[in-house]
């Protein structure tokens, strides 16, 4: 059964200029209840890897540099 890859717009946006993941920060990744934030191997910054968001906001509230913005998922907004 072949697999397709479809584009999807994700609700959590991370400002690469503010994100300090390269210094070892994993705060947003650690606190996400759905485990959908991971390090982007290309940039070394945090990003939303899976479109499985409960728009609950610990990632934004706990980020030490205010790099994270949680938007309402497009299907709901």
């Amino acid at each position, binding site marked *: *059964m072949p697999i397709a890859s479809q584009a999807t717009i994700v609700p959590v946006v991370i400002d690469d200029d503010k994100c300090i993941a390269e210094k070892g920060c994993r705060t947003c990744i650690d606190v996400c209840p759905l485990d959908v934030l991971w390090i982007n191997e290309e940039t070394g910054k945090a990003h939303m890897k899976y479109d499985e968001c409960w728009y*609950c906001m610990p990632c934004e509230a706990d980020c030490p540099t205010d790099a994270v913005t949680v938007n309402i998922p497009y299907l*709901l907004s």
Partner: protein
Amino acid sequence: MALPDDINVIDVDILVIGGGTAGPLAAITAKEKDPDAKVMLLEKANVKRSGAISMGMDGLNNAVVPGHSTPEDYVKEITTANDGIVLQDGVLAYAERSYSMIQKLDSWGVYFQKDETGEFDMKKVHHLGTYVLPMPEGHNIKKILYRRLRRHRVIIENRLQAIRLLKDKEGAVSGCIALSTREATITVIRAKAVIMCTGAAGRIGLPASGYLFGTYENPSNCGDGHSMAYHAGAELSGLECYQINPLLKDYNGPACAYVTGPLGGYTANAKGDRFIECDYWSGAMMQEFYNELQGGNGPVFLKLDHLAEETIQEIEHVLHTNERPSRGRFHDGRGTDYRSSMVEMHISEIGFCAGHSASGVWINEKGETTLPGLYGAGDMASIPHSYMLGAFVYGDICGENASEYVRDRDLSELDEDYILSERDRILAPLKQTDGIPPSQFEYKLRRLVNDYLQPPKVTKKMDIGLARILAMENDIPLLYARDAHELLRANEALHILDCAKMAAVASMYRQESRWGLYHNYVDFPQTNDSEWFCHVQLFKDNNGQMTCSKKPVKPYVVELDEHEKSAYQKMRVQQTN
């Protein structure tokens, strides 16, 4: 025979599964009782921000505070709110410890609203008594719990999803098999007792938005505990009494009419008229809500636009900073302002949640399930209408009793054949080179639940739904995961599949209607006390089949008079012209 190196084994005295609300209390109490015990708190996410209260909670819905109500008043309220089908001893055990738990939380630094005399500022929302206590700073609750866990040196294991319980030769629960959600490796935790606090099964139905994770419940609460208990042979109860809640349309968070109620807000129809007597969530209330949605007076709205500016600011502060803080952002995106317009509401997808209704893994007043060594607390366990404070109290009760139970016990031998076969089953989707992605499998399953199992319930529809859900079991060998995260979702989907079957089987067993919309069975529209004044227990029989049986309601410890019995039956506002 020894287990291979790819399986990590950890030994503890007490294993608590689920670090949301009940779990932390269970672990803390177990350590308070025996500071030398090895107590592990296992969490699929991260204990700092997990479960239903990951961002906090705006208040207690069921505070039994002296001077406002007695434990007996509360037992009556919940008995009638749940149409009589309750284990009163279990509700009473909660009610008797409700106030001391509030005092304990208060001493830990949880701030409850107080009036000018320093007393708890109680609000009336329920039909009969006064039980609501606001927590305007409730966003810090998880931090306070986390500090306590660290202080008591509870062993915390994050990002491990418990998948199956282990049992010893005598049938006592002796640990669990878990999957690392980041590494896709198997860990076995051996324990003398297990306390399950895995939350609601909130991912059975599909939200009206179609977004898989836009559920009412935190979507990590997908019925892991319900499925584990079932496969271990425990009884579940009241699964036909679904959770269905009134929510903000699309956002799918609670509209919290009952939070705004004491401040003058209410649920209204399209004409702006009040149509229900009481905004406290019950099946009868939800039936009226459903009728209004479907009738010519719908949709239904949260009405605040008649309130004063300072009142609206207070409501915004409470509702936009605690339980679901992205709510303000949702309203801003659509240009919705409480001052100038009513806010559209809708009903949630179905779920199992004792926090709001009555369904879950059966426990008694000691937090014991029907299996020795297995305890349960919180939204997953069967004590009805427990909410957050009930989860804390039953976590506490389970911690206490499990601590007593393990005192003279040893760790059991591991059943290696079972562990190896489970390892292979759990990891199978990773071994595929293509196949069905977990997201598509889950979408189809939950769409079937919406099409066939939502109330109003109809036998013929549920027959078709169950057959289609069972047919999906043939697709399990085709499940395909590309990484550890997708493997987590594949295993969650299998727990959801179990829960969907349970919803159908339990609903078709109870051949009457009860609890308003929760079990509105079109083929049997009347409540039939002579045959169905009982609990419906669901379990795996000796042939491995999903089966139900009747369990008599234990004689009441608090009797109700006729007025109290019917208080929740008359929800619709009566015409006065």
